[in-house]
């Protein structure tokens, strides 16, 4: 079980400066193929993100905590290897019909 490396080696230290403002549902998409110099985890992110993927999904795929993924993504973002997109907000307030639909769906369960 476990791996020899600890998480701080992957993120490059706990004092990882400012993290990019990423959310669990921020969509990430790769802009480039992984170059051989990037860390293996970042290469994995770049491979996974050929199509847009949320940060939460990345975290689940890599079995890495959210903070680690954001730290890795921050580096990738500064290197402009990935792009982040906030999820599309349809309206400031959720649609009433959407809420109803969800409610009905939940009741049906």
């Amino acid at each position, binding site marked *: 079980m476990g791996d020899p490396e600890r998480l701080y080696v*992957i993120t490059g230290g706990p004092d990882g400066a400012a993290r990019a403002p990423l959310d669990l549902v921020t969509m990430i998409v790769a802009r480039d193929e992984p170059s051989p110099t990037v860390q293996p985890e970042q290469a*994995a992110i770049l491979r996974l993100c050929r*199509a847009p993927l949320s940060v939460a999904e990345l975290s689940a795929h890599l079995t890495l*905590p959210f903070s680690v993924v954001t730290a890795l993504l921050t580096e990738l973002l500064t290197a402009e290897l990935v792009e982040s997109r906030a999820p599309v907000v349809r309206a400031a307030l959720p649609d009433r019909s959407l809420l109803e*639909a969800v409610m009905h769906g939940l009741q*049906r369960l």
Partner: protein
Amino acid sequence: MVRLEAPPNDQASPAVRALLLPAALMAAATATVVVLAADTARLPLMLYGTAATALVGWCAVGLSRRRRTIGVLHEHYAHRLTVLERRLAAHDEETVRLGKVLMPAAIHRLRQGESPAEVMRAVVDGDERYRELPAAQRSLLRSVLQIVDDEEAMRDSAQRSFVNIARRVQAIVHQQASELREMEEHHGRNPDVFDDLLRIDHGTALIGRLADSIAVLGKARPGRQWSRPVPLFSVLRGAMSRILEYQRVDLHSIAKVAVIGTAVEPLIHACAELLDNATRYSPPQTRVHVTAVEVQTGIAIEIEDGGVSLSEEARARAERMLAQAQAGIDLNDLGETPRLGMAVVGRLCQMYNLQVSLRQSAYGGVRAVLIVPRDVVTTGPAPGVAHGIGAAAGPRGSSVDLPTKDVLRPQNRVPRPVTGPRRSVPLPPVASGTEGDIPVVTEWTENGLPQRRSRGRAPLGSHNLGLRTPGPGPDRTPGPGPAPRGSGQGVAPEPANRPGPGVWLEAFTKAVNGTPQEPPAEAGEGPAGPGERGASDDVRGKGELK
């Protein structure tokens, strides 16, 4: 003895002859005086002359006899002298042999675990050269062996006791590390807490390395065991995670090989010590470069720092320390040396057949080269894939066994004895309060996310179910075992048909908003009858996949 008496006889004759000369002269003088003197004095002269001649002759005889006695005695003493000298030399030789041959052999045997009595039997009595060893030497040897044996036993017990303590520290550190890892997962979304946890984690790893060092110096294995091969990259990052200034270490072009389980921990530890040396003895703004290339004898791991170059003397000292450690460390010598690292590395090299050398670096600092023998290196399980944590998360759908590992994960997790949110303890589902409430991950969505179902659901729908298809339908029983993704029809084996990731989210929102789509007809059909429960279950899964 007979031979020795002969020479004095031979020598006596000229001496006797020499001594007879004065007697003869005396006799001649007497005769002359007697002939020349007057008749009246002739008689007394003759008498005195004869007496004097006799006296001289007697003296001559006595002298010659004494001289012969002296000669004999001289011979005798010379003979005794040579005998004694010979004996002295023999004694010296014996002492030297005792010290240089017998004693080392005996102590060597003693070190290999024989008792003093056994050693005496084997070394002294078993060898005809030493069988007639004088009693004094015998007892000397015995007492020396006894003393050495006692010392060894004392040192052994001391060593065992601190290895024991080191083991306990290691156990605590491992426990701590795994709990920290869990906490890191739990607090992964809170960056502040997470960073603090990482800091604690780092400190714990440093403690662990110290404990490992103590264990190694006590001739024990370092730390934990690994059951499977670990990629070299992970091994090196493992080494990095155990030093203080890991941020200064750069890994370049690491050979894509794996290290077999038994050699992982020693290698991590040896690399950690070398990296620690490299970072500690170089200016804080310089980087430490690590490369690992395949060479004829195995893998050469090079650790280069940009510090002050080792002077020839310092290099010799370091190498001497390494060599000493390989020969076996005297723990008493370690007391004053602050550089435990080299001793530990030397010891590990000796135990695991690694080779290490220190050279001048092109960057001006020190270049440590560690050669890992070929027999502990394998080409590894998937050398092309990313290493380490998250290595299991390859490109989607590439590995079938990916979910297996992850499915087992939440179930195997031991609840940690700390306060805080516990994801691992499953909450009972709200709807069904019946038996077996543990939600089991039985399905995987197209994007690899686990889909949980409560166990109570399927029996609820299926007890009066006629429509259920027994075939390879997706309504598999939610067994506790890992259900590999892709085993049902919902997840088609061909990856071409799969929707892209993130698309399902869009589809879901569309469906919820009422945008018509082809299959969700059943999903929106209102409450399904009890008979269709199982079917609608599957449909839901499908709808989500769309």
